[in-house]
């Protein structure tokens, strides 16, 4: 059976290329028994979503802080 290092490598590769049926089966088998890798398999995609929200969120954060700082003064 694959170890966790090999399993996480395949799960990471899964974002870069289509895995073979054999590889996907190996991951499934491994993850049946390994809760850590099961969580990694979710988080590897979470990381992608986090990265994509990064610039957008910063934009909104800046907007809010500007709005807070210009809000009161613009009413004076």
């Amino acid at each position, binding site marked *: 059976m694959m*170890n*966790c*290092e*090999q399993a*996480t*490598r395949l799960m*990471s*590769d899964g*974002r*870069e*290329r289509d895995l073979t049926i054999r590889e996907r089966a190996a991951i499934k088998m491994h993850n049946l028994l*390994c*809760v*850590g*890798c099961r*969580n*990694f398999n*979710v*988080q*590897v995609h*979470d*990381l*992608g*979503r*986090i*990265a*994509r*929200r*990064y*610039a*957008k*969120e*910063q*934009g*909104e*954060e*800046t*907007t809010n*802080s*500007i*709005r807070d*700082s*210009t*809000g*009161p003064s*613009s*009413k004076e």
Partner: protein
Amino acid sequence: MGESVLPGEAPVEQSAASHLTDPVFLDDLRRQMLKFAVLQLDNEAQAEDAVQEALIGALKNVASFERKAALKTWVFAILKHKITDLLRYRQRWVDVEKPSDSADDETLPSVFDTRGFWHQEDRPNRWAQPVEAIDDAHFWRVFEVCLEDLPPAQGRVFMMREFIELDSDEICQSIDISASNLHVLLHRARLRLRRCLEEHWFCEEAAS
């Protein structure tokens, strides 16, 4: 502070043009763009130029942007293109240090034991909070710190792949590494990033 807001009073919304003349906003934006560009290009002067050009490009077409957030997303999109061009151009005339050599030097984070199984304390826990539900400025600071904590080659390819959303082939071509080297770097980057986020963010969530 007891300041009453009249019902129907419009929230303070400036036009996009005034955002770009707002020194506080511009300063903030420049700083964030520069941080991003330096991480990608690993060259302060080229990063400064790319940011400057992206901002000038934005100023020329600013009229069509109503909201500040939209403006910012768009300015970042211009910057991404500039960086991609620079990386492609650089490949033609600079002898790029080969990340393929350094890839093997960077040891894996010691999350696995000698047999390749998780160390007990490094085994990924379930993250209590769905990514979509994250709504906290502090999280993004934690994310930045974790990104900066990655070895440079790992941070660069991770951002190219997941932020700029170049595909594997494009990344391999622009920095001249093999697909398998790229995949090694991405695997390591993801292991490190997830551990850092869990340690500094999601772990507190789970504990509470």
